[in-house]
């Protein structure tokens, strides 16, 4: 049953340890102009003698080094990666190819608009698609990642209130929210207040209405929330928030659960960000680059970061820099364009029917796994769930086995662990999101592994608590690493 076998992977030291003087891996063309010496041009005092410790390597060593390192990584092309909330979907290869077309990678962001109409066409088409998918009126592609989009959105809410005479003071955020939400609110100069979840795992309308007042600038809601539950009162929540003059921000981390099914713009959301690396398959890259476009309703459009991409009427595009009410720039240049190409490629590959199908199958897969595991793992909230399901380790912790142990043991079975210990409102959370790009066989393998671990937790907890047993390294002593941080190579001592 266990699909993980052993295979050779090679040890490899740090670049700094395999260096040898005089090796090199790259040659520049010889200089083709009459030259002066650098000392003569700059003056000696500007010049460094050497770069202490920088290694010298041959091309073969560089390639072997990084290839060996790469084999130590789990990745989505290798297998199932059910990280809840992170949406580890298949990353289509065509996205990579088109993002590397020379006309795109060699485009400089300061080129005159007329010289980069193809770039602007891609960005403009992506903006229109995202506006339609979310039911919003305008989109900015400038933010570099989800949290960056949150900051952009909250700053727009602030600008909106300032334009109405008072920025207000508080922003309310459910206790189940991602940590970036309160952090983004705080650096926007607002006070964060958590909204408690109710027994069904949703925003408590009662609690919310008690907290709302005319000093609340906005409410930040993740929908479906981090338990995978659609906030069924969302329209009522939005009405209530609006009746106090506040705005609704939606964290679009889980937008992949509603493509073509329902639209934030149709249930009262005023501003939201999307994570292109979640819903729209731009690769996670081992932790970035991401992309976090923000969509707004008309009332917030004038506050979008400048410049704003605009159609010229004759099929061309240009940037409008004259935006007197803009929140300003949130990043140099107009966002991570390489990610925009990939996301548009994905949207165009799917079309309207395909996008809806991705959501339908993502929800089917998550509910399939839920139905197969809910007798073995505790389900703290039994509301209907969409694209992900959150179990707790309650059944296993009785045997001394934690969510962390279960996660590590899954590695031995050849699977990436789910997200653990999030959301914070579930103790020992195991947050599973299969996405639509997994086969039934792959999911069945995972389900079998989870059930086997549940059994091990009862019969042989030690094997779970000491996992993983099959990896290059065992559990890392994270506490010591944090107590005595070693953050760069200082040589062998």
């Amino acid at each position, binding site marked *: 049953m266990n699909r993980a076998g052993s295979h050779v992977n090679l040890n490899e030291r740090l670049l700094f340890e395999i260096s040898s003087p005089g090796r090199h891996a790259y040659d520049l063309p010889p200089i083709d102009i009459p030259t002066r010496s650098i000392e003569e041009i700059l003056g000696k005092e500007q010049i460094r003698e050497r770069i202490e410790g920088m290694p010298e390597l041959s091309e073969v060593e560089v390639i072997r080094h990084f290839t060996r390192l790469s084999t130590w990584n789990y990745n989505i092309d290798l297998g199932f990666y059910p990280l809840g909330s992170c949406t580890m979907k298949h990353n289509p290869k065509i996205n990579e190819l088109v993002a590397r077309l020379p006309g795109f990678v060699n485009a400089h962001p300061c080129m005159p608009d007329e010289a980069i109409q193809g770039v602007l066409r891609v960005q403009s088409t992506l903006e229109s698609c995202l506006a339609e998918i979310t039911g919003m009126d305008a989109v900015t592609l400038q933010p570099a990642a989800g949290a960056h989009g949150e900051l952009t959105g909250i700053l727009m809410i602030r600008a909106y209130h300032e334009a109405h005479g008072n920025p207000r003071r508080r922003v309310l955020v459910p206790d189940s929210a991602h940590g970036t939400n309160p952090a983004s609110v705080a650096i926007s100069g607002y006070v964060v207040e958590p909204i408690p979840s109710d027994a069904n795992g949703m925003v408590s309308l009662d609690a919310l209405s008690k907290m709302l007042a005319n000093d609340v600038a906005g409410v930040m809601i993740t929908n479906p929330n981090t338990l995978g539950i659609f906030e069924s009162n969302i329209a009522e929540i939005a009405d209530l928030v609006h009746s106090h003059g506040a705005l609704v921000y939606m964290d679009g981390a889980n937008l992949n659960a509603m493509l073509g099914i329902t639209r934030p713009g149709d249930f009262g959301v005023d501003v939201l960000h999307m994570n292109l690396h979640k819903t729209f398959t731009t690769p996670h890259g081992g932790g970035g680059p991401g992309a976090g476009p923000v969509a707004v309703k008309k009332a917030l459009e004038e506050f979008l970061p400048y410049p704003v991409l605009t159609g010229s009427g004759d099929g061309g595009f240009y940037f409008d820099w004259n935006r007197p009410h803009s929140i300003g720039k949130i990043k140099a240049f107009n966002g991570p364009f390489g*990610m925009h190409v990939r996301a548009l490629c994905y949207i165009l590959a799917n079309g309207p029917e395909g996008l809806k199908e991705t959501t339908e199958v993502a929800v089917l897969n998550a509910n399939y796994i839920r139905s197969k595991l809910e007798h073995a793992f505790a389900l703290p909230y039994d509301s209907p769930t969409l694209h992900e399901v959150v179990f707790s380790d309650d059944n296993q912790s009785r045997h001394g086995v934690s969510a962390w142990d279960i996660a590590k043991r899954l590695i031995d079975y050849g699977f990436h662990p789910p997200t653990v210990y999030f959301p914070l409102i579930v103790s020992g959370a195991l947050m599973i999101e299969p996405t639509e790009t997994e086969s039934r066989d792959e999911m069945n393998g995972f389900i079998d592994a989870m059930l086997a671990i549940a059994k091990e937790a009862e019969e042989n907890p030690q094997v779970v608590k000491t996992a993983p047993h099959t990896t290059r390294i065992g559990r890392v002593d994270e506490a010591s690493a944090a107590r005595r941080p070693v953050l760069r190579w200082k040589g062998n001592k």
Partner: protein
Amino acid sequence: MRYIPCSESDRKAMLAEMGVQSIEQLFSGIPEKLRLRRLLDVPKALSEPELLDYFQRAAAENAEDYVSFLGAGVYRHFIPVVVDALISRSEFYTAYTPYQAEISQGTLQAIFEFQTYMTQLTGQEVSNASLYDGSTAVTEAVLMAHRITKRNKILVASTLHPEYRAVMETYVRNLGIELKTVGYLPTGRMDTVALERLLDDSVAAVVTQSPNFFGTIEDTAASAELARKHGALSVVGICEAASMGILRPPAEADIVAGEAQSLGVPMSYGGPHVGFLATREKYLRQMPGRLVGMGSDNEGRRAFVLTLATREQHIRREKATSNICTNQSLCALMATIYLATLGPAGLRKVAEQNIQKTDYAVQRVQTKTRHKVLFTGPRFNEFVIQLAGTGVDVQERLLRSNIIAGLPLRGTHPELGNALLVCVTETARREQIDALVEGLK
């Protein structure tokens, strides 16, 4: 849809096992009044050949074959072929953030190597795992200085990249932080007399950029010393990371932050790129962003792991040092591979050729055209030409011969008249530089 493995019969079988009638039933938690009962109005699905065709056409609409002397924070450098070959390995680009250390050692060790490289290049003691880009990295450095000093005033060189300055303004506006501008001298360098006048014990940081927006290499040691005298931190921004291959590093600065796009990352119309932030060990706990540490596993083997997460938003929420969650791992990997490939000699050669070709271009413009080259300070690979007359005709003429002469500075630095910021890297061939000079006549 071709990216979905479950066939129609798989789906039926799964529903039957679940005892559910239809997929539609799974959406019962969404009130009917909120359901979209039409198809999304997005373009119809394209097959793979159609997608290729669509994007090839869009890419061809760009002026790819132009000779460009644009720099201003994004630089055209040669990128060794091995960089893209290696980052194209699925094991790197389709992995998630390395939270599970046992199956992420590849990414973790590569980030540790990136951190080490950045300390070597900047002369600092610690570096994070990367930030979004240069503009947000320098801004994060300012917020960090504000946290460390608990002071509210930031003195910013007017020769900081204008887009960096704009981003900084957006971030600090609501935090009670005040930005004050320090002007520049005819050398192109920061006016340190003006700086000294503005410095007092309310200043959190002095922000300079070197080479600065005009391409002039700053005396970062002098501004750091002045800052220190008043208990302020010195923040040095670096937009052109290739310069670190030869220039004396700003080791005396308290925080060095910037953009590493020059180290093997394509221009790609401005992103994704890779910001970095390096500082002194004593400020470690106020750093934003991810950090990888070296430690050991349960059997004492060397192991790498994300560390000091108690500074970060997923633990500290609203009290975190930054709201940033991600880093730019794959772009940091590009920089790491680039640096490994070039080595110290290769990187120095790149820097030398930038300096020499720029020097050649400056001399040519000065001796062969009627335009004036501004600023007398030492330069890396950029310089400012003040065009005689309106300047517009010259630029348009060059554009007609497929040469983008540089970035007009009318909008950001109107005091310079019709000025153009010109960048000459190692990729510019002699005949291209000569054609630029010819066109400027």
